[in-house]
């Protein structure tokens, strides 16, 4: 997995490339922790290059969704392929996250 950080306006964009699983979810946890120490943070996770996600990856997303919501921030996702989208559907995550087609749609 590789994580690329950028900032568009007030939003922190994290592009995740490759596999997000039990062997490497700590890397995403570290990045999100260092971004979410402040209230009202805005984060967009671009999953366009994500090839695979397991429940270990999903648990980090849920943990930070709870944390960010409690601190009046926004945690958005975009770029889900149909295979990744199916995992989000089965897990019910499709209903609890703000999900956009792509970065442009999320950021406008």
């Amino acid at each position: 997995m590789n994580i690329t950080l950028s900032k568009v306006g007030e939003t922190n964009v994290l592009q995740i490339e490759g596999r997000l699983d039990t062997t490497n979810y700590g890397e995403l946890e570290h990045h999100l922790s260092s971004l979410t120490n402040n209230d009202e943070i805005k984060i967009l996770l671009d999953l366009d290059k994500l090839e695979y996600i397991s429940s270990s990856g999903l648990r980090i997303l849920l943990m930070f969704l709870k944390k960010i919501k409690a601190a009046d921030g926004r945690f958005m996702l975009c770029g889900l392929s149909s295979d990744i989208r199916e995992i989000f559907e089965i897990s019910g995550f499709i209903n609890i996250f703000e999900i956009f087609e792509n970065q442009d749609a999320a950021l406008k």
Partner: protein
Amino acid sequence: MQRMNKVQLIILNDVGELRKLHIACENMAAEWLLPEKISMNINLVLEEIISNIIFYSYEDDLEHEITIDFRKENKEIIISITDDGKAFDMLSADVSADIDKPAEERKIGGLGIHFVKTLMDSVEYRREGSLNILTLHKNL
């Protein structure tokens, strides 16, 4: 050319070993010409089962082997996972995944077993002596 229709993989009880699983699933998909989605679902379900065994099932700090047997039949893939951890039957375990709750009320966890039950076509469990044997069927 004669294709192999059985493959065995042995994984030790260490999270780093899950990488072997990924490689084995890719090789299996290539060898048996499986659709990408089926091999991804098998990879996912096995990651959930094996990581649970590593996390929850051993009561000592020793090395243990987890054996995965893959078999291709005419219209299905049959996978059995054998471990010598404590007895655990996911089919009768009292676990749920809260998949309909809003974010605030959703608990963390419980998705692994939910994925196994949802993505496989059938799942069987048996305890044989000191071994857990879980058998998964995935239709092609």
